[in-house]
């Protein structure tokens, strides 16, 4: 049985599995007994990289079928500082899993900046999870946050740009309407500050978010990058989600009912 390598973002971990990405995503979200549920997000990795930090050489020995022949669902390789040790060139498709186990595959595309939004909202997903208001576009944001010469930086970053609708250009007056974020007045204040002080490109809105991502708030797609390279995984359009990926999309819209 083929062994796949997955880089989980939530939580950060490197996992070997004999399941396909779709099967793994479903298993990862709801388990086998359906007693748990939880959103998940992971990249499929090529197995061609070498790492002194991540012990993947003996993966065939560690990731073996169960005694009854059932494929090994998950074998954790590492759960700490995984992201920074995975080379960019080994990263393949991204999989977004809803909390009831529906999986959407996103393929990499080149990022083309053709927007006029003055302000952005970035939810960092790994290795740390602050919510940042920014005047930078995604490539610049990624570059500045992964500049390890700076005191506040990470070697590699996974993030998603969230919708701001009218607030992106008019944070003072635009209506909030369909924006579901908590502490919205504080967020509006952060955006106004950014607009007033162009010299300061980023402002932390929430130091560390614990909640699941509402997939419907994703503005354009997901990003992973270091200081050299950035990969972009665009979300399908709303029409495509409602048409081709309806089951996933409806499940994604139901998220957030975790009382």
């Amino acid at each position, binding site marked *: 049985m083929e062994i796949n390598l997955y880089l989980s973002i939530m939580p950060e971990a490197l996992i070997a599995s004999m399941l396909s990405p779709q099967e793994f995503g*479903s298993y990862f979200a*709801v388990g086998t*007994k*359906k*007693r748990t*549920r939880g959103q998940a997000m992971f990249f499929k990795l090529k197995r061609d990289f070498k790492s002194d930090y991540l012990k993947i050489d003996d993966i065939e020995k560690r990731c073996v079928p169960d005694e009854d022949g059932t494929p090994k669902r998950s074998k954790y390789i590492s759960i700490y500082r995984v992201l920074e040790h995975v080379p960019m060139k080994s990263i393949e498709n991204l999989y977004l899993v*809803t*909390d*009831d*186990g529906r999986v959407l595959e996103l393929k990499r595309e080149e990022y083309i900046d053709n927007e006029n939004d003055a302000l952005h909202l970035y939810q960092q997903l790994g290795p740390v999870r602050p919510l940042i208001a920014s005047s930078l576009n995604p490539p610049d944001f990624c570059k500045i946050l992964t500049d390890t010469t700076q005191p506040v930086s990470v070697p590699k970053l996974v993030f998603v740009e969230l919708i701001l609708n009218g607030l992106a250009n008019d944070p003072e007056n635009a209506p*909030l*309407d*369909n*924006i*579901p*974020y*908590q502490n*919205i007045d504080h967020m509006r204040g952060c955006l106004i500050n950014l607009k007033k002080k162009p010299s300061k490109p980023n402002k932390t809105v929430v130091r560390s978010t614990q909640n699941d991502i*509402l997939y*419907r*708030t994703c503005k354009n797609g997901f990003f992973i990058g270091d200081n050299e390279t950035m990969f972009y995984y665009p979300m399908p359009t709303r*029409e495509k989600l*409602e*048409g081709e990926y*309806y*089951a996933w999309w*409806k*499940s994604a*819209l*139901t*998220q*957030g*009912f*975790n*009382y």
Partner: protein
Amino acid sequence: MINGIFWTVPIASIIALAFAVLFFKQMMKNSEGTDRMVTIAEHIRKGAMAYLKQQYKVVGIFFLIMTLLFSIMAYGFNLQNPWVPFAFLTGGFFSGLAGFFGMKTATYASARTANAAITSLNGALKIAFRSGAVMGLVVVGLGLLDISIWFIALNYFYPIEIGDGHNLVIITTTMLTFGMGASAQALFARVGGGIFTKAADVGGDLVGKVEAGIPEDDPRNPATIADNVGDNVGDVAGMGADLYESYCGSILATSALGAAAFMGNSDMQLKAVIAPMLIAAVGIILSILGIYLVKTKEGATQKELLESLSRGINISSILVIVFSLGILYLVDIENMMGIWGAIIVGLATGTVIGKATEYYTSATYKPTQKIAKSTEFGAATVIISGLGTGMISTTIPVLAVVMGIILSFLFASGFNFNNMGLGLYGIGIAAVGMLSTLGITLATDAYGPIADNAGGNAEMSGLGEEVRKRTDALDSLGNTTAATGKGFAIGSAALTALALLASYIEELRIGLLRIGETVLEFSNGTNVSIATATLTDFMNFYDVNLMNPKVLVGMLVGSMMSFLFCGLTMNAVGRAASKMVEEVRRQFREIPGILEGESVPDYARCVEISTKGAQREMLLPASLAILVPILVGLIMGVPAVVGLMVGALVSGFVLAVFMANSGGSWDNAKKYIEEGHLGGKGSRAHKAAIIGDTVGDPFKDTSGPSLNILIKLMSMVAIVMSGLTVAFSLL
């Protein structure tokens, strides 16, 4: 000799039933769609029929016991009209039959509506609406048929040309008792259906949506089919039986009041008795015309869809106003213009209540938007604002009914408050006017669950985006019409109950005569013949005034009954829902592959749990509704019974409006947020709105609508048991 024009009534009832059969056949000609769609529809049909079978078993036992009791009272002790056992049975039978046909049609129509939505919005609207019309026409058709048969049969045994009008009083008061059978059937259908539907809905949502995170109408949720079955048993069978009772009750009570009002003038008496039946007959024909006017264009907006439904109802209503004048002219009834005025008042009152309901429950207007806004501060404020809005929303319907009562009384009585008999007849006529277009108004009600189920079928069958958009549009329209329909049902119940209150006095007259009394002996020594005594004479004789503690006690018990009944039915939903939660959790745990969509859940088990829960839970509230008027009558006599009826009417009417509107506005506040306001889906506001909606579910779909029937059933029990009350009351 029955007036020739009377035959219009049975003919209209047969026309209604013929069109119901035609619409049913036309609907059945359409395809149910793919194998998957057929399978889902079959699951729902089987579940709905299994529920009805179980319900009819329980109700059958109840009817058997009650019929035996009535027979002993009638034939053993001469305390009861000998026709009552039969009238009770036919009322219950026809009411149940109306619900059965309506539900059968609805369960056949949903998949066909979804399938038609693949190609056309208008096609889907037509199937859903005309299937709803089957329900409307079956209710009015069977109602008028039952009335016609009894009128003809009783006329054979009590010829109206003999007895100086007394026989007509006997005929109308006897016919009125079949309302108790219809009411009892309706109460079981409404309460049982209401508990079923909300147990499945709330229970399914709590585990499916909240715990497992799977969306509504997802085939992986074992309670999904039960939820869809619930829409049919609650909103179709329950609503049908409820309005069947209101429809017949208003006609029969008005006829009884007409017979009493014109006592001594047998020609005018007969005209007053058949006039409400004729107005209902004209209403049937014009409803059918209105049904044909409901159509829309492709890609119609929500507003255009609503307009197409409103067009049918509005044109029918206007034509009823015009044609009823013609009918009254042909009948040549006394104070024709005044009676006609009462009909217009009834229709106008219904329209005002419907519009007020729409205003307070639709997200297009401020009250619901304010509730939505309150979600930003959490669940507690949503509950508070929903309760507050619901309470405020009682103002317009209550004032509309107040105006309706005063105006119809004044018009019919010739602006003379002392002309009690004709004034009360006018109130009854107003109720008949309001319900005259029931054929089409009930169609818009029954259409709702059909469209809802069509959406569920499209969802579970994985039909395309365009189809789901069409079924969603139809479903959304159904939510608006259902809220308006509930307002209409409550308003008509209030007027009908008032007419029943007056009819109760007529039943007292018959009850006293049956036990051998001939005169009312007053404390001042004067005597009045019972046969000719006026309503005021009876009120004076029984000392029905607010200073009599018996009346006050009765009023307090009546008011309490509304709240007790609501509390019992709401708790019943909670208990039945918790059983559903356990079952859905068990299936997720024990049946492998449900959440992956690899194995099929045990839908039938969930239907069974909801069915058993509903049957068990409906018995106590239903029994109380029947026993309390009997006990109050036996212990404290007529004044307390009148107080009980008044107390239940005033508290039940206001409470029903409050609960239906609170529930409706919570529901639509949630939908308003889901449309993208105040943070939209997944926001904190949305979570708070979901809590409000869950609280509102039993408000609007179980307790609120059941109150209509509670009011009427208690009145009917009081009427049927009046012989027992006058013979055996302790105090």
